C-alpha cells in the first residue's frame, strides 16, 4: 500500500509557493483524502467557514481558467475569511488572500500599479509571518515595473524590520532580501558607471557623483559578501559581485570568491561555479594548467559540457603525448551523449586521435575506452539507418564516422560498408583513401 494517498491534499490556492513546511502540512482548509474518511470536521464547520470554503473553490476555478474579473468578484467576498477568529486559520487565510489577491490584481484589466501597491502594504500587516515575503514580492513587482528606487525602499524597510525572533524560513527570506537589496545597489551602481563612461570622464575618483557611485559599490559588495558566505546557489549574485570586484581591480578578491563558490564543500555541487571560475580565469589570461584543473573538475560533474572540447584541445596544447589517454576519454565521453552524436568537430578529432594513438602504439588505451561501449555504440552510432542518413546529410561527417567505425569494428562493419557503398557514388577518391587507411590500421583486426 502506498502511503501516498494519505498525503494528497488540495492546495486551495494559486501561487502558494514558499510557505513553511509545517504550515502547509497542517493547512486546515486543504482537505485530505483522509478527511473524507472522517467527515467529523465538516460537521463542526461553522457557517462562515462553509461559505468561505465554497467561495474559495469558485475562486480557485476562476483563477485556473484565467477569469480575472470573476475571480475579483469572488475575492471581494472571500475577504471575510479574515474575520475567522481561530489563529491557525488566520495565518493561512491571510496568506491565501495575499497570494490570490496579488495574482488577480496583476492580471485584472482594470488594476493599476497604485492598487497593487496599496494592496501589498495592507497585506504586509495582515500577519506578521508574511511580512518579509510580501515585502520581497512587492519589491519584485516594482522592479518589473521599472521602479528601482521604490523597490529599494521596500527592501531596505524589510531589512530593518524586526518582530520577535526569526524562524528558519524567515531567516532565509531575510537573506534573500539582503541579496536583492545588494543587487539593486549593484544595478544603480552600474547605471551610474555607464553614465560616467558615456560622459567620457575616466577619472572616477573626483566628482560627487563618483562618490555616490562608490557608496553604492560599498553597500552592494558588503551585502553580497554577507550573502555569499551562506551555502546555496547564488549564481547571479556571485557574478555581480565578481563584476564589482573586477571594476575595482580586486583580482585576488574575485578569484577567492569564485574559488570559494566552486570548491567549498558546504555548497551544493554547482557546475556553473566552475564555469564562472574558468571564464574569469580565461578572461584574465590565467595559466593553462589552472584552466585545465578547473575543467577537469567540470568534466567529472558534467562530461557533456561544450567546454570539454576546449579541455581536449587544451590538453593537447599542453603536451602532445602526455595527456593523450585523458583527452581520448573526454572525446569518447562527449560522444556518448545524444546531442554530440552528429558533431563533425568531435568525430574529426576522435578520428585523428585514434589514428595517432595507433601510430604511437597505444591501442590498449582505445580498447579500454571501447570495452564499455562495445555493446551499444554499434547500435547507437554505427547502424545502417545512421549511415544512410549521415551520407545524405553530411558526407564528410559520414566519412569521419566510418573511419572511426573501421578503426574500432574493422571494415566489415555495417556502417562502414553502407558509407563506402553510398560514398563511392559521390566521392570515390575520398572513399578509397579512407579504406586504405583502415586496412593499414584497425584495432579490431589486431585483436
Amino acid at each position, binding site marked *: *500500500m*502506498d*502511503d*501516498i*494517498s*494519505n*498525503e*494528497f*491534499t488540495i*492546495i486551495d490556492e*494559486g*501561487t*502558494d*509557493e514558499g*510557505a513553511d*513546511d509545517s504550515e*502547509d*502540512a497542517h493547512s486546515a482548509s486543504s482537505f485530505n*483524502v483522509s478527511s*473524507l474518511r472522517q467527515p467529523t470536521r465538516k460537521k463542526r464547520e461553522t457557517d462562515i467557514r462553509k461559505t468561505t470554503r465554497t467561495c474559495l473553490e469558485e475562486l*480557485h476555478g476562476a*483563477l*485556473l*481558467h*484565467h*477569469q*480575472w*474579473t470573476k475571480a475579483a468578484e469572488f475575492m471581494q467576498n472571500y475577504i471575510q475569511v479574515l474575520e475567522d477568529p481561530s489563529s491557525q486559520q488566520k495565518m493561512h487565510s491571510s496568506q491565501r488572500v495575499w497570494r490570490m489577491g496579488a495574482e488577480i490584481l*496583476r*492580471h485584472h484589466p482594470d488594476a493599476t500599479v497604485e492598487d497593487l501597491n496599496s494592496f501589498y502594504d495592507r497585506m504586509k500587516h495582515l500577519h506578521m509571518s508574511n511580512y518579509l515575503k510580501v515585502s520581497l514580492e512587492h519589491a*519584485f*513587482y516594482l*522592479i*518589473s515595473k*521599472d521602479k528601482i528606487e521604490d523597490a529599494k525602499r521596500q527592501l531596505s524597510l524589510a531589512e530593518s524590520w524586526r518582530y520577535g525572533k526569526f524562524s528558519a524560513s524567515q531567516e532565509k527570506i531575510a537573506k534573500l532580501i539582503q541579496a536583492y537589496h545588494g*543587487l539593486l545597489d549593484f*544595478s544603480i551602481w*552600474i*547605471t551610474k558607471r555607464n553614465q560616467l563612461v558615456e560622459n567620457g570622464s575616466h577619472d572616477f575618483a573626483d566628482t560627487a557623483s563618483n562618490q555616490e557611485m562608490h557608496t553604492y559599490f560599498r553597500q552592494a559588495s558588503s551585502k553580497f559578501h554577507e550573502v555569499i558566505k551562506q551555502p546555496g*546557489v547564488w*549564481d*547571479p549574485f556571485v*557574478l*555581480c559581485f565578481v563584476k564589482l570586484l573586477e571594476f575595482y581591480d580586486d583580482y585576488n578578491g574575485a578569484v577567492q570568491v569564485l574559488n570559494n563558490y566552486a570548491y567549498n564543500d558546504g555548497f*551544493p*555541487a*554547482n*557546475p556553473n561555479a566552475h564555469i564562472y571560475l574558468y571564464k574569469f580565469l580565461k578572461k584574465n589570461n590565467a595559466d593553462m594548467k589552472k584552466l585545465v584543473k578547473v575543467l577537469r573538475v567540470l568534466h567529472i560533474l*558534467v562530461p*557533456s559540457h561544450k567546454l570539454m572540447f576546449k579541455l581536449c584541445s587544451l590538453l593537447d596544447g599542453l603536451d602532445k603525448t602526455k595527456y593523450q589517454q585523458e583527452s581520448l576519454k573526454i572525446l569518447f565521453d562527449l560522444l*556518448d*551523449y*545524444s*546531442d554530440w552524436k552528429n558533431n563533425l568537430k568531435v568525430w574529426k578529432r576522435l578520428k585523428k586521435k585514434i589514428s595517432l594513438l595507433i601510430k604511437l602504439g597505444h591501442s590498449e588505451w582505445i580498447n579500454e575506452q571501447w570495452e*564499455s561501449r562495445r555493446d*551499444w555504440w554499434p*547500435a*547507437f552510432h554505427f*547502424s545502417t*539507418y545512421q549511415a544512410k542518413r549521415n551520407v545524405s546529410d553530411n558526407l564528410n561527417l559520414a566519412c569521419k564516422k566510418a573511419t572511426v567505425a573501421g578503426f574500432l569494428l574493422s571494415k566489415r562493419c555495417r556502417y562502414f560498408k553502407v558509407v563506402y557503398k553510398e560514398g563511392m557514388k559521390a566521392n570515390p577518391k575520398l572513399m578509397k583513401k579512407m579504406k586504405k587507411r583502415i586496412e593499414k590500421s584497425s584495432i579490431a583486426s589486431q585483436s
Partner: protein
Amino acid sequence: MEAFYLENFNDAFGCMSSLLEENFYFGYKKLNYNQRKNTIGHKVTNTFLDNINFKKCPFQRSCKRARLQSYLFKEVIYDIPPVLLAEHLHEELKAEKYKIFFNSVATGGALELFPLQNKSKTLECCLVYPSRSAMNKLNFHKVKLTSCKSGAPQLKVQEKLALFELNGTIRQINVADVEDQVYVGVRSDYLCGAWKVNRKQKPEPLQTIQMENPATCISVSPYLPGELLVANESGAVYLWNLKTGLSMIRRETENLYFNAQSSWRWCDFTAHPRVITYADRTGIDLTDIRSPSTQTQKMFSIGQTAECKKGERVVLLKHLNDVNAYHHLVTSQYSAYIMDERFPCVPLLKWEHMLKSPPIFSQILSGDSCKTSNKILLGTQRSQEVLMLQYSDGTQMAYEALGPPLQFPARSNCSRFIPFLLPHEKEVLFERLLSPGAGLAAIYHPHQANVLCVIQLAETGDVFYQTWSRQESSSSMARPRGSDANSSEKDHRQEKEREDHGVFVSSSTSHGDAPKETCTFGDTRPINHTSNPNQNTNVTQRCEGNTPLTESVGLSKKALAKLVKWNSNVLQKQTVKRQEKFCKVKNKATLALPKIADTATNHSLYPNIRQKMRVAMEEKKTLSTCLELPSLEVVDIPGHIDPSSWKDDLSKRLTASWDGKWNSWWENKLGLNRKQKIEALRKKRKLQKLARGHRSPGLSGSFTSSVTYQSDLTDFSDLSGWSSADSNFGGSRCSSPLSDIETDSHKGPSTVVAESNTDMENVRLGEEQDHECVPNSVTASSVSSTSQYSAVPNLRQKSADSVSAFSAMDSLAQNRISVLSASKDKSSAVTGHPSPNPRLHSPRKSLTQNSHQLQKKANQDLASLLIAQDSTPEPDLEDNWIFPLASSTQKSSQFSASPSLLGLPLSQGSVTVSQPKKKRPRMGF
C-alpha cells in the same frame, strides 16, 4: 465477513465442499446400501436446512450443490481460517478504498499519439489506445488533423491500422521514435509487450515478457532501437533488450531516502543512453547501467530539494527528450518541477499546480523556437483536470515560468450541451463522463502552430479531444508594457468525431465506443516578457499573454448530434447492463408471516380477526366499530355435588376412589385395618392424656400450622403468577394488534400515552406480529416506569402502564386506563391473593398453556422485577388478574369498556380473592 461468505461462498467453502461432495447425493433415486453408509441424500439435507432455518442466500446461482453445502457448513468448515481471512479482507478493503482516491497503476497514461511520417509535417498521426471494458484491446488507429479555415481544426478518424487483444488491462503505453521507426511499449499488470510501427507498414508485435511482480513502469529508449526499461513492484529495474532479453540493472527493496512504504518504482532514460533515472516516492537517482552498484547519483529527493513540503511524494517522472535531453519533469501532489540532471537536487523551475488530485499523466510540447514557449500538460486521474504550464525556451535567457497555469475545461463539462435528459439518464451520463482518466496526449497542428489538440482517454474507454486555437484579438487586453497581448477567444466548439463506418469501436462491442469532441479555446502563448536588463534572476514574475476563458461555450449542430447519439448509445448499454446486474432476491421466506403456534392457528378466532383488521385498515376505520369479537363462552361452574346423599356401597366406593382413598375404603370395608385403627385410637388417647398432663405445646402447634400455611401460599402464588402472565399474554395478543392498527388508522390522535417505546415497536413490526415482542415490550415499559417511580405507588403506575401499552392506542385508552386504575385502587385495597382453587385456574390455564414457553422470558423478567421491588408478588398479580378479564371484556363488549363492564369481572375476581383476603392479616405473624 458475513457479506464475504455470502458473496464469495465458493471461495470460502468451495474447497471443503468439493471434498465432501462424494458424501452427498443430490439425485432422486434411492441409494443402495453401500452408498448409504457414507452418503447423505439431499432430502435429508433439505429437511435439515429447513429445520435449522439458516438465512437464505439472496443470490441464487446455478450451482445449487455448492450453495447447499456452503449453507450446511456455513462457518463451521471453511477453507481459510476466519481470522486470517478477516485480516486479509480488511487489508484488501482498505487498499481498495485508497485506490478509489488514487490508483498509481495508471501512472504514465495509456494513450499515445505520434505522427506517422517523420519530418514531412504530416497531418496523419497514429493514435494508440486501449479499448473494451476490460481495456485489453490495443488499438492502432490512424487519425488526421484537418484544418478548415472557417472553424476549428478537427481530428478525423481514419482506418484502423491494427487491433491486438491482450491478456490484461493495459495500464501504460509508452512510445519512442528511434531511427525512423516507432517502438511502442505496453504495460499491463504482469505482462509487458513491445510493438514496432514502421511508418509505412502495419504495426507488428515484437516480444512480450511476463513478470512475477506487477510492473509499475515501462519506458522505451529513444536512443537504441529495441531497448526498453521495465520496473516492477519488487523494486527491480530491468533493461529489456529485444535481442538479448532482460537484464537487471538495479534492485532496491527499500525506498531510496526514507521509508515511504511504497512499492511504486519508476524509471526513465536520460541524456546518456547508458544512464537511467530510478525513482520511487521518496526521490530520484541517476544510475549507470554499466556499473549500477557504484555509479549512482542523487538527482531529486523529497526533503533535500528546495521547498519540498512535508508529506510530498514523487508521483511522476518524465524525461523531456524533445525539449532538452538533460531535463526531467518531476511531479508531486503539490508541485511540478523541472530538474536538470547536470545540476542535481536544485530544480530548474517549480510550479504549484493546484490540481485536486496528483497529476499522473503528462505531455510535453516543445516550442518550435524562441517564438513559442514549451508547454507542459498535466492530467489527473480522478478530477479529470488538464492543466497547462508554460516555460520559456532557455536558449538565450534563463529558463522561466510564463504566465499563470491554465486549466482546460473538464470533459464532464460537455454534459451541459445535451439538451434534455431524464434524471436517471442524467445520472448514467454523469457517471460515464466523470469516470477517471486513463491517459493524455496532445499534439500541435503541423501547419498551424497556434492550434493545439488535446486528447484524453477515460477509464471507460471513451476518447475525447479538444482542439484549441489561439486567436489574436487586439481589443481584449492592453498589456502595460506594450506587448501584443494574445488573448482569448471564445469560439468554443465541441465536435464529436465520426464513429460511423465503425472506425472507433463499433457500438456492437460491449463498451468503449470512442466518441470524440473538440473544444476550441483560446490558446496562450507568451510573448515578450518584460525583463529588466540588470536582472539576471529568474525570480521576477512577468506578465504574459493570458486567456480569460469565458463560459460562453457553444456547440455546433453536428457536434451536438454526435454527442446525443453517443449519449443514447451509452444509455442503451447501461439499461441492458442494469437488467443483467440485478439479481433476483427471493423475499418470500423473509417477509412471510412466521408460523404461529398451533393453538393460535387452529383457533378460528385469529384468521377472522386478522381479516377484520385488514378490512379496518383498508377502510381506515377504528377497530372498535368494525371488529366484532365473538364473545367467549362462559363456562358455568358446576354445582356442588354432595356424595353423602348417595348411600349405596358403589357410590361410596366411587367417591372414595375419586378422592384417591379407594384402597383404604376397601380396607375399611373388609376390616383389614381394624388392628391398626385400634392402635391408632390408643395412641390418640395416650397423647390426649399426655396433653392433659403437660398442656404446654398448644401455641407451638399453632405456629407450625401458620408456617405450613405460608409455604402453601407461596406455592399458590407462584402458580397463579404463571397463569396470570399467561392470561396477560392472552390479552395482549388480542389487544396489541388492535393497538397497532389503531395507530395506523388513526394516525395517533394524541392518545399515545406513556409507552412510546412499545407502540413504536409495534408499529415497526407491523403485520409481522411476533409473539415475543409484545410481552417483551411490556416488560420494557414496566422497567422504564419502575425506574422512574419509587417502589409502592410505582406498582400501580406500572400496571396502568402495561395496560395502556396493550390497549394503548385506542381512542378510549385513556379513559380505560383511568377506569382500570380506579378499579385497581379498589382491588389493591382488597389486595387479594389469587384463589388457590384449581378449578378456577384450569380453563384459563389450558387456553394459554401452549404459549408458556414463549412467555417464560417475560415472566422471568417480571419476576426479577418483582423481586427487586418487593418480595411479595401480590400487587403484580392483582393487575394480572385484572387484565385478562379486561381483555375478555374488550372482546365481548366491543371496546365499549364501560366501568360497569369492567367492574363485573372484577367482582368475579374478588369472589375468588376473598379467601386469601381474610388470611392477609395472618401474614403479619
